[in-house]
């Protein structure tokens, strides 16, 4: 037995040394892009495709000759869905690896765990995920959709297709709470009435009593900003109770992690949502993107909303570097603040100089046979929520996440 143990210990030791290598060996003259994502653990459904998108974007940049004549080199860390590892790897990226830019973070908690480190160490940071809005910090660029961009489009669309009484079922954390308030606002703006709002921690998976409760209120439409695997059961149980044909359903999150491919057509059909990207978007950019992705990852089809956002983010950064003609952080920030635009698979993405958020296309969709059919595209929506509180051209030293008063 002792032999086995020694063998085992020996192996782990070997592993330790090999794992240490890639961080120490670097070719000179490359541009270092730091990536920090949950490629394993409960959030890897989001993180893995984001990692793929990042590698694809970098590959494309390098194929086209790199940036400023230099190749881009990726230093990637898997945070294993553990918030503590964000702090740790964030420090590692900025202090030891001394990367030129960091792309990553998925949950808002993970972004907040590293944002200050990035700021303190003057490392440019891109957070490329749909989130609750309000971050105002000149060191960060964000190009996911915010509630105003998404909800403002989704609510009238969904209400038009159902009725005026709305019930909100939201995930009980920052994103869900804030999104729910935006939904309440836009429902009222569109002449509707919110008849009930319930919040669910991310680990709740039994919605039986909730479904009964919703029926007591008798709404025409349920909007569900629910997040994660456990919450997916709501859509199952809703269909199982035979509610699908009685009350219409909309969501601000379903499909972001390709959930529509997990639900059966009977469970998913008809659910309405609004995002910056759908695999079914019929544009030449998207066709090309999907083709390249499939070629690069052996026919894989896992690209989704936030993976594409991540891809947009890296392309935006690359464009900023090109325009700045330098790797200097301030030069890149100033170049980006000129309002740079790129064309991506999700449409045109423009940097909003005031907020460092993105002006982007929002596509209204409806699920149909495990696809997200695009019904209508609303071009170039402004991040009005964050614009209401954040003006980095007036207050360049701002460093707050505002909670927007609605």
């Amino acid at each position, binding site marked *: 037995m002792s032999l086995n143990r020694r063998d085992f210990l020996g192996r782990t030791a070997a592993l330790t040394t090999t794992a240490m290598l890639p961080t120490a060996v670097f070719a000179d003259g490359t541009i270092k892009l730091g990536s920090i994502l949950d490629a394993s653990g409960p959030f890897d459904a989001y993180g*893995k495709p984001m990692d793929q998108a990042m590698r694809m974007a970098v590959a494309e940049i390098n194929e086209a000759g790199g940036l400023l004549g230099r190749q881009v080199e990726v230093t990637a860390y898997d945070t294993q869905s553990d918030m503590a590892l964000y702090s740790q790897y964030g420090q590692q990226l900025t202090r030891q690896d001394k990367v030129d830019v960091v792309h990553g973070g998925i949950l808002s908690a993970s972004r907040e765990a590293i944002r200050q480190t990035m700021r303190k160490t003057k490392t440019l940071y891109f957070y490329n995920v749909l989130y609750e809005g309000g971050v105002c910090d000149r060191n960060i660029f964000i190009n996911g959709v915010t509630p105003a961009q998404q909800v403002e489009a989704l609510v009238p669309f969904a209400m038009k297709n159902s009725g005026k009484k709305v019930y909100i079922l939201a995930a*009980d954390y920052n994103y869900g709470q804030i999104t729910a308030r935006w939904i309440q606002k836009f429902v009222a703006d569109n002449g509707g009435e919110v008849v009930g709002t*319930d919040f*669910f921690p991310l680990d*709740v998976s039994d919605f039986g*009593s909730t*479904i009964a409760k919703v029926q007591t209120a008798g709404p025409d439409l349920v909007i569900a900003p629910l997040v994660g695997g456990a919450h997916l059961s709501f859509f199952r149980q809703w269909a199982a109770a035979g509610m699908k044909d009685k009350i219409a359903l909309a969501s601000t999150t379903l499909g972001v992690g390709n959930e529509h491919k997990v639900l059966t057509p009977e469970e998913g059909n008809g659910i309405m949502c609004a995002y910056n990207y759908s695999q079914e978007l019929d544009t030449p950019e998207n066709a090309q993107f999907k083709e390249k992705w499939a070629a690069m990852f052996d026919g894989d089809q896992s690209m989704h909303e936030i993976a594409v956002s991540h891809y947009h983010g890296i392309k935006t950064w690359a464009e900023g570097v090109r325009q700045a003609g330098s790797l200097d952080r301030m030069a890149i920030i100033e170049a980006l603040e000129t309002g740079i635009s790129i064309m991506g698979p999700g449409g045109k993405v423009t940097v909003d100089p005031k907020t460092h958020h993105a002006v982007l296309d929002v596509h209204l969709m409806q699920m149909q046979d495990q696809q997200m059919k695009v019904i209508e595209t609303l071009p170039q929506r402004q991040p009005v929520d964050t614009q209401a509180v954040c003006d980095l051209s007036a207050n360049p030293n701002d460093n707050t996440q505002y909670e927007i008063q609605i």
Partner: protein
Amino acid sequence: MTTRSTKSKSNRVFLPGGVPLAPRHPFYSFKQVSMDLSFVIAVEVLYAVASLVLISAGLAVVFGMMKVINLAHGEFMMLGGYTTITAVGLGVNVFIAMLVIAPLVVGLIGLIVERLVIRHLYGRLVDTMLATWGLSLVFIGLATMIFGNTTTGISTPIPGFAVGDYQISGYNFFIIVVAAVLVIAMLAVLRGTRAGLIARGTMQRADMAAALGYSPDRIYMATFFCGSALSGLAGAVLAPLVGLVPTSGGAYIAKAFITVIAGGPSLIAGLLSSATSFGVVNQVFTFAISPVIGEVALLVAAVVLLRLMPQGITGRFFKGKL
């Protein structure tokens, strides 16, 4: 009590000024609401109790017979879920997959685990807990490597139906029936068969069975197989209701653990009494306030209960029952 508190709550929140409920039902009277609603709530409470029984049965059998707390129990359930989904994907009828294949497969996995790990640790309660905890992590890792970490699932094979103006899930009834059949079957086996007699003997005094010429080794093997199969069954039956990920087991183990310990030494009476107490507490608070408070109420009830009855419910009441 349940209905009243819910009613007043729904009244306060959803019916400001006594506005009729839904325009689609012009003759919607308040009386009807409460009757239908109380039926719906009754079903939900029964369902909560039934799912607690299902979740805990495997753990209870292993604990009751072997005094082993299997902390990989939740992962056995997770494996039951994955077995079902894989089998259905291969074209097997969903009921056969849930009720036959999943218990068998997970039972066999349990058997392997018992031979490789557990049998070296009999009589060391804390060590078995730690080893099975380690096993649970191993299973999560394996499932992640095999099935990936994306949420998977199958849809419920039974359609919902209407109760008055309410739609309720038909699958809830299926769960209740499965739990009821399970309890009756366990009773029948323990009371009516030779194996049950040996099992009861072992529960009372493990050395007695040995003295009577039954190999404890084989009894433990059989028990662990049965316990694991029950966990597999529970995981399989609950799979259509939840999105399955490799870490799904964690959601069950704490509840199962609490239910079994609070139940106390009697296998079936303990299981039923604690599942009923916790199920009712959970659902009452869920309806009256919110699902979170429901969960917290369950946990608080567990603390209070164990403080008052440190030997579990059946340590004080229903003594000597099965």
